[in-house]
């Protein structure tokens, strides 16, 4: 991410959000009994697993200055498809790779339309959002497939966990997150993502394969979304065309909340994850305290607004003070 002037170095969104997350956790543990229990943590984490998995490639994509709104629909498609195939008597071991391939294809379509045809990703993925969701209901219609064998379903249950409170999907997510973080922040590939996001033409002139990289990112996003679809299906033991409806906004919200700049070229994976956990745990805490859903919605909104405004405001104040000092 681009370096900022000394003052605001400590006022970055991601840091702010991280602090907020800790605060929420502390208050929760203090005030609300039943919050800090392993059981609660386990399912609170499990609740955000699908969103979390998608958020990883989405962060890379947004850093590179693109966006993918079709992720939730791809989740639905993958869910519907696995249901369809399972119903048709396929072995789960064959279903998973097939569904993942579909995810890759979906990503390819997005990427192709953006890089080769040269359409804005926002427009393209709004289109594929409708398309993939549609294909999902074509695949499964109004049916719901539910008879997934326990031995797979258990893999996503709240009760089978690592360290007593980390469900397998989250454990896997953690591993992927570390890898993604390294790729984004330590490797040349990561560097080129920031370059593309900040100044695409300059990146191209510097010999960075802009289009190929973007294509790859879209494919990754499709793949992860499809995988999230499988996790979702197993956890809720129900494959339906409308699974994960509207999740795209949740993913975008968490990534943006973490301070990843939609204009590209800025952001940290840590921030994105912090944003994700913040939304997840805050929701959990509010529900536990019987806060009406409407209020939860409002709080989410306020968080988003606050997360971007507060650092700017503080920075501005310090800036003014500094200028007075200089003069």
């Amino acid at each position, binding site marked *: 991410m681009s370096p900022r002037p000394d003052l605001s170095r400590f006022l970055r969104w991601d840091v702010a959000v991280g602090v907020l997350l800790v605060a929420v956790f502390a208050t929760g543990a203090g005030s609300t009994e039943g919050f800090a229990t392993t059981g609660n943590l386990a399912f609170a984490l499990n609740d955000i697993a699908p969103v979390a998995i998608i958020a990883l490639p989405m962060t890379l994509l947004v850093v590179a200055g693109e966006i993918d709104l079709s992720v939730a629909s791809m989740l639905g498609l993958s869910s519907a498809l696995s249901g369809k195939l399972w119903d048709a008597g396929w072995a789960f071991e064959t279903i998973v790779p097939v569904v993942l391939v579909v995810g890759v294809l979906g990503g390819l379509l997005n990427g192709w339309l953006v890089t080769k045809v040269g359409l804005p990703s926002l427009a393209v993925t709004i289109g594929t959002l409708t398309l993939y969701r549609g294909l999902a209901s074509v695949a499964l219609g109004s049916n719901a497939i539910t008879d997934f064998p326990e031995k797979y379903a258990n893999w996503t249950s709240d009760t089978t966990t690592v360290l007593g409170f980390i469900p397998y999907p989250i454990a896997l997510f953690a591993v992927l997150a570390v890898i993604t973080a390294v790729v984004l922040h330590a490797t040349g590939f990561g560097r080129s993502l920031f370059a593309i996001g900040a100044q695409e033409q300059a990146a191209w002139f510097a010999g960075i394969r802009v289009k190929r990289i973007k294509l790859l990112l879209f494919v990754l996003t499709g793949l992860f979304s499809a995988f999230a679809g499988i996790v979702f299906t197993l956890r809720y033991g129900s494959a339906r065309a409308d699974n994960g409806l509207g999740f795209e906004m949740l993913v975008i919200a968490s990534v943006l909340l973490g301070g990843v700049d939609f204009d590209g070229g800025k952001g940290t994976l840590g921030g994105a994850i912090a944003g994700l956990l913040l939304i997840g745990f805050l929701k959990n805490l509010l529900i*536990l305290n019987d806060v009406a859903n409407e209020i939860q919605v409002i709080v989410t909104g306020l968080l988003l607004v606050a997360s971007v405004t507060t650092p700017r405001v503080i920075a501005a104040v310090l800036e003014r003070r500094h200028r007075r000092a200089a003069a």
Partner: protein
Amino acid sequence: GGTTKKSSSSSSGSGSSVTSSATANPDAPLKTGLKIAFLPKAINNPYETIVDDSGIAGAKEFGGTAKEVGPSDSSASSQVSYINTLIQQQQNAILLAANDPNAVCAPLKEAMKKGIKVVAYDSDTAKDCRQLFINQASSEQIGRSLVQNLGKQLNYKGKIAILSATQNATNQNTWIGFMKQELALPKYKGMTLVKVAYGDDDDQKSFQQTQGLLAAYPDLKGIISPTTVGIAAAARYISSSSYKGKVVVNGLGTPNQMRKYVKDGTVAQFSLWNPKNLGYLAAYAAAALSSGQITGAEGETFKAGKLGTYKIGANGEVILGKPTVFDKSNIDGFNF
């Protein structure tokens, strides 16, 4: 974990073990201070609000405290988060209208294991995931009677269409199933079901679906909309279009929504049970369960306050009663 056909048999064993372990004591008094929670499909669904409010009022009668919690999107996944938190809060009973009969199963079983009573209303869950299902009216009866009523209105001739809610709504699909069975009977050979359209319980979408239906099938004679949102939208479009008087609309609606169209003659009749009674009954059923009056086994009976005594049918189903048919003559008698 998810529910499998195998496991459903096994865990329904465990489910029934929850019920059979405690033996029913019909004379046990209703416990006071019971904590029960209504979990509707979505908190801003007007119909569900009516149901839950009367349920909450009912709970007051027997000295319990009831609350309504839930998501604003009618999705199963968000219902699950709420079930989990209700378990954490150790409620005595959870009453829910399932957005997806199976997605909510795992946490509900968890709840029953912890001794929390589970009552489904309005939209059922898989049978082994709850102790009781309070059915507004037998699904079969709803499905068939709607077709019967429309049949009479059209004297068994002409093309008809169904305007449903979302493609995956459990109760809708069950009813539609029975409608098709009824239509298969010989006396309906003059009537053909040309299309099932989905308005997603979204007023504006249902409105446009109706337009589309009438444009696509100019000779359409009747529309059945087994959802309060759908029938209102359909009636409204027809009342302001050139099709008024040419197309019969029937289905499930609330008197307050439909009054205008019954009065202006767009709609001759529609039906619905009294949602207030549904919530009321559900509350009492939950109380009876928690107080050990009943276990959810077939044949048991319990008293539901002013509504009188109810008997548990097969699969732990309790049926509220016959739906009321509303028309010019009686509609002003109702306000919900």
